[in-house]
């Protein structure tokens, strides 16, 4: 695999000046040797016209947050760089400066020169050109450790050094040798450390711990629950109370304690059944669509509502072939509907089924394992979305309220929302809501604090100067308000849509278009 580098894009003034600034500060950083009478400035910098060849030989590891690869770089271009400085030509002045550095307090062992140590600076222009580089390097990128670049061999093939002192052969040779060793050092030591430092800077790894310390003091003052939906600003904190609760929960899991602390807006796995009952699974939808399967048979299969398996028992036990046929047809209908994402409004335009796809470009979707799961299994996902829309009712009312159930079950089938609406929903709600809906308990990612994503902290109070932190949401952060609002909107939407859909379903039932059965279901 090789890359074509768009080298011409480097020829911008801003980049050149940026590089010049960077190089100037790098060259003048630290203590300059006494032989230099002035600071080094960059007179001319040209990237040239010929791009380097960049070839990836091997990718050892590839992940969302890490990458390891071996590449090969070849450059035989016309890049050139001209440096300007002043060189001290009086050797006794250099001796004097070196000797003064060794002095403790004042001039003691340095002899008192009169005029023999007078400085005499010669201007020096140094041009580096005809750089030939061919090297094999290893790039290791890890989100937690930054980017490391190491060259396996000595990448510098040759370099042409021309200076003001070219006429003096001895000096020219000396400079050539010195600069070659310097550049070799640069490739071997300076460049890897520089790149590593820069990558750390841009990943801002070390900032996080600072943030935590800075805000922990303030958070201990306010003691507000992070999951308190009323206080929006306090949502971004690790409050000690919350941590205490989490610890308590953890302990109950460890010790099999029966007392499980309750979290606002969070459902324990032990109570999960009450939710999954209302999940619009295949069976649920089937039951609602047919209106004929008696309550008894429904109840028998009620306990395996979690799975989307085809209720074979229902088909086997039934002796009536017509009914079996209808059930089958209904099943295939539901499946194909969800598979093809047929919208109610225009049936003619069927959306192409979404194949399994992993998009690495859109990071937000790919970041959470649940979202890949959604991509894997789109049918499930659409079901979940309808679950999510049915959530506020179950959450606002008490969970054990059985009177509510018929109302819930009145929702006839998986919501047929257009896929783009689904996408919008997915984008607008934070990914964490999926944890809330589906993944509860210790074994899930929710309580796994050491996740792949770096944990970031957030301020306890809204600080205008630190608004950007709002963007960095904690993995434990659940924006319930937002979810609730969204779901309310959704339910409003749905109630509006329901009529339409009823109408649509009527026509749908009457026309009953023949759709190809979906590909075999893998469950």
């Amino acid at each position, binding site marked *: 695999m090789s890359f074509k580098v768009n080298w011409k894009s480097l020829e911008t003034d801003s980049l050149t000046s940026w590089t010049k600034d960077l190089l100037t500060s790098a060259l003048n950083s630290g203590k300059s040797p006494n032989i230099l009478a002035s600071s080094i400035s960059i007179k001319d910098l040209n990237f040239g016209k010929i791009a380097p060849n960049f070839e990836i030989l091997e990718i050892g590891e590839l992940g969302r947050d890490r990458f390891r690869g071996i590449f090969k770089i070849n450059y035989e271009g016309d890049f050139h760089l001209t440096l300007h400085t002043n060189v001290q030509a009086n*050797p*006794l002045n250099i001796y004097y400066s070196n000797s003064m550095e060794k002095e403790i307090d004042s001039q003691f*062992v340095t*002899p008192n*020169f*009169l*005029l023999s140590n007078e400085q005499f600076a010669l201007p020096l222009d140094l041009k580096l050109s005809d750089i030939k580089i061919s090297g094999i390097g290893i790039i290791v990128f890890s989100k937690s450790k930054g980017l490391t670049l190491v060259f396996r061999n000595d990448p510098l093939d040759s370099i042409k050094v021309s200076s003001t002192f070219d006429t003096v052969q001895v000096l020219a040779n000396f400079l050539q040798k010195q600069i070659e060793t310097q550049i070799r050092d640069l490739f071997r030591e300076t460049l890897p450390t520089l790149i590593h430092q820069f990558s750390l800077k841009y990943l801002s790894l070390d900032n996080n711990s600072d943030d935590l310390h800075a805000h922990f003091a303030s958070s201990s003052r306010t003691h507000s629950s992070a999951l308190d939906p009323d206080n929006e600003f306090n949502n971004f904190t690790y409050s000690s109370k919350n941590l205490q609760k989490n610890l308590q929960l953890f302990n109950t899991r460890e010790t099999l304690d029966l007392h499980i602390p309750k979290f606002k807006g969070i459902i324990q796995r032990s109570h999960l059944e009450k939710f999954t009952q209302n999940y619009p699974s295949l069976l649920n939808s089937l039951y609602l669509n047919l209106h004929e399967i008696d309550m008894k048979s429904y109840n028998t299969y009620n306990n395996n509502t979690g799975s989307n398996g085809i209720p074979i028992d229902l088909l086997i036990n039934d002796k009536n072939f017509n009914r079996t046929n209808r059930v089958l047809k209904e099943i295939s209908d539901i499946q194909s509907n969800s598979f093809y994402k047929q919208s109610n409004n225009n049936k003619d335009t069927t959306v192409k089924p979404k194949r399994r796809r992993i998009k690495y470009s859109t990071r937000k979707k790919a970041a959470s394992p649940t979202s890949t799961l959604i991509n894997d299994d789109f049918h499930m996902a659409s079901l979940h979305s309808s679950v999510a829309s049915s959530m506020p009712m179950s959450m606002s009312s008490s969970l054990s309220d059985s009177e509510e159930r018929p109302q819930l079950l009145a929702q006839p089938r998986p919501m047929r929302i257009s896929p783009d609406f689904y996408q919008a929903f997915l984008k607008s709600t934070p990914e964490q809501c999926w944890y809330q809906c589906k993944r509860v308990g210790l074994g899930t990612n929710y309580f796994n604090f050491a996740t792949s994503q770096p944990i970031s902290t957030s301020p306890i109070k809204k600080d205008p100067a630190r608004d950007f932190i709002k963007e960095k949401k904690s993995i434990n952060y659940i924006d319930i308000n937002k979810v609730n609002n969204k779901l309310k909107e959704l339910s409003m939407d749905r109630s509006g849509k329901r009529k339409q859909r009823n109408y649509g379903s009527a026509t749908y039932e009457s026309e009953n278009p023949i759709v190809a059965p979906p590909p075999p279901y893998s469950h």
Partner: protein
Amino acid sequence: MYTYMEYLQKCFYKSTNWNEDNIFSNITASSSAILDFPIPTGFKLDSSNKSTEYSASSFTLSNYHSINGSLAYLYSSVPLRNTMGTKEISLQDALVGFRIIEPSSNNHKQLSSSKRHDRSSLLYGRMYFPGSALEAMIIKRISAHTQLLIKCINNPHMDKNGTMIVYLQKNAPKYSREFIYSTNESLIGFRCLYNLGNSDNSLNTALIPKFDNSVISIGTELWYAARTMSPGLSTAFRYSTRSTSTGKPLTMTLAVNPILGHLSSTYTVKTSVASTFSSRYDFNFFSYASNLSLGFELYNYSRENPVHSFANRSVNLSSEENRFLSHQDRKVRGQHGGNTIPIRSHTSIAQKDHSNMIINPIQNLDNYYHINPTLLPEKKKLLDEVELAAHLSSENSESVTTAFQNLVNESDFASVVKFSTSLNDRMVKILWEGRVKDFLVSTGVKVGMNPVTNAPEFNRFGVSFSYAC
């Protein structure tokens, strides 16, 4: 400002008749004291004590970079009786300033007295903490005109743990020679200085006041660092004289480095008792780079006795300043209510007795030369008169040069302000040194132009306190 240990070293030199001005490295001492004075950095406190006449100790505390300090001890085989603490020391002695170059004429007198100092020695050691760096110095007089000076530092942080430098100095009245060897890169050096002109006209010194106080010195230095093969060479010429009319000393130097084509000329003049002005022009005839540096120092009289008394001095100077001084003196005396002794001006002397006194060959009143004919050697008969005149003149009145010099030496100054600027370096240095209570305080600032941004910035700033008793 000298540290107390440097001051004691100078006193040692003085009491053993070692002429420091005769060393090549001090050939531009006057101008560099006014142009290149150091600025203290940070806060520094120096407390010293001369416990006996032979030994002294010093303790220094400073906060440059971090709090650090040093302990120093000094031993001298010669009793240092002429030293003073910071309370009573005259500022001219304590500070690095203009040096009046004495013609090395009447050394024959001192030779006899310095016999007992032939084997004198001085030991000095200083320990720095933290860091446990040491510095030591030995001055050993081998003969009346020869001495051995060894300086070494030991610093465990250095690559070779230390450096030693050895000076073998011969300081005769007419010339001085130095051989130097430093272990740092095996530096070898040779310096010499010759005084031109027949200075010791011993016969007439008593008779004729020395009008010709000028000293011409020519010197050169040669360096070679063997390890790095770096050579160095420079020559210098110094002309030091005093104005015959006013007695004000001035020094001109011209230093050349022929290897690098560098040329440096200075002109330093003590414009009055309390002020000195110096200028330096540097030029390089290879690169045509030039630089002009200007500086001055201004002394302030102390409040206790603001005007110097001329009780036992008859000064006949023509300058405005001395006229002012004499006027002041008269006024002060009038205020005190005592009997006012008028200062004998030249005119009154001339009017009173025209023949027996020679004070100044230039008559300031009418710009006319009045050379006493009795002094001419042909008049043998008047020789006794001449002797009498010489005796009188040495007893009662002085020449303008010595009068000015004594005026400078005896003035009680409280503080001094030094200012120096350099056009090419674009920097300004201001230093204030003076007596506060019993302390000698030195504070200064260096403001330079940033070469990149052209914005003025503080390069150095510091305060230094020194106490000695």
